[in-house]
């Protein structure tokens, strides 16, 4: 029998390694910052990492899996299983405060909190709304959305009317 501190040491190490894996499409964030890393467990030599994709079509999941397996192998964990967790689905609310800070520092406006729309029909948005998204370059609130979709599914495009800088914003979903 090993002591509890010894059994916990590999778990802490595996968790540290998993938490450090960057997201391929938002590489300034780790998968922990993004809130897609749901759990890490270690049973004997077997490591199980649970992930929740951001969007159904997120093409980065195979890359993240490969990265997790290779980084954990380098840290001495040869037997790694990556599981998909679909429930509860990912929401932009899962992005950590640290993740939001890193997004803003990289010029990407972080998401606001998501309105609670669970249950019932989803309201239609007919008029392109103008929510207060602060410009990550100059801080002005005088910004406008220029497109509902951007280079990745999780972002839309804005323009600042004060400093004229175009910028991306992580959508609230």
């Amino acid at each position, binding site marked *: 029998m090993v002591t509890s501190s010894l059994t916990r040491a590999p778990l802490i190490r595996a968790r540290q390694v998993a938490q450090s894996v*960057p997201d*391929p499409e*938002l*590489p*300034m964030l780790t998968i922990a910052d993004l809130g897609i890393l749901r759990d890490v467990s270690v049973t004997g030599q077997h490591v*199980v990492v*649970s992930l929740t*994709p951001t*969007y*159904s*079509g*997120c*093409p980065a*999941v*195979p*890359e993240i*899996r*490969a*990265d997790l397996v*290779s980084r954990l192998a380098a840290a001495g964990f040869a037997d790694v*299983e*990556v*599981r*998909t*967790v*679909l*429930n*509860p*689905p*990912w*929401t932009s609310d899962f992005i950590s405060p640290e993740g939001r800070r890193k997004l803003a520092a*990289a*010029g*990407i406006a972080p998401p606001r909190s998501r309105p609670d729309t669970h249950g*019932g*029909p*989803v309201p*239609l*948005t*007919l*008029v*392109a709304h103008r929510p207060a998204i602060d410009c990550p370059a100059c801080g002005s609130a005088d910004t406008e959305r*220029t*497109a*509902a*979709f*951007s*280079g*990745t*599914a999780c972002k839309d*495009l804005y323009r600042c009317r004060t400093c004229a800088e175009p910028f*991306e914003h992580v*959508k609230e*979903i």
Partner: protein
Amino acid sequence: MGFDTAYEAITEEAEDAGHRWAYGTGFTDPLAGVNTTIPPGVDGGDLAAYCLMLGDDALIMSHRLQEWLARAPELEEDTALANIALDLLGQARLLLTRAGTADASGRSEDDYAFRRDERQFRNVRLAEVADADFGGLVARLLVFSTWRLALLVRLRESADPVLAAIAAQGVKEVTYHRDYAAQWTVRLGDGTDYSRQRMEAGLAAVAPLVAELFASTAVEDRLAAAGVAAVGAGLRPEFDAVIAEVLTAAGLDWPQAGGLAGVSGQTGRDGVHTEAMGYLLAELQSVARAYPGATW
């Protein structure tokens, strides 16, 4: 990491030889690690057939949207349509994989997408028809996403927890698709005389394909009784209300049109498709059929 912009970070990452950046084949099972046990009282064959219907709708609609890449009127619309197509492709991958686990056939998403013939596809015909122009696309996407959102909202409560989880994620995605199509319907309908004509022509082209969305097959009726499926007819009031709200804002009327006839009463859900479907599949499956098992 201290990068000034996302682009610096990407460049830095790409220079790291330990990272792979080419997205290609070799996709892993999108349901890896998910408990795919069939709930008690649910017929696995029926569940598989239902997931194929919803998965084929998404796959075929996604393919049609991908045809707009580099053809949309503005770069922003190219990007939007590509993202909508990607969301639907992701939903298709999950649903087709769920079908293969539900009937215990072990068939993969690729088996379903690339190695079935036209008569085996179960998508509604609305998903497969080609768009005459951007107005036609907007009309088709409006109808498709309004119907699919009403369906997915209800499937969040499905007795199959896998289907419920796929639907819960899909609701958030299709909400954006519907808003996009609705806002364009208003811009075109309430725009110039010409844009209005194109939008009216688009609505006239899709109207005959709407009735099929709300007919239900025996499989759907059985699964609805088991709490797994949402039956088409129950979605109609919500669909009609949303379409009416959009058309009122756009100053447009819904065209009067009879439903497009099937063959001996059979339509898309029975594997009976329009002429467009064979051409679509020829392109969708060309690489997989020319180079079986190819990877890159």
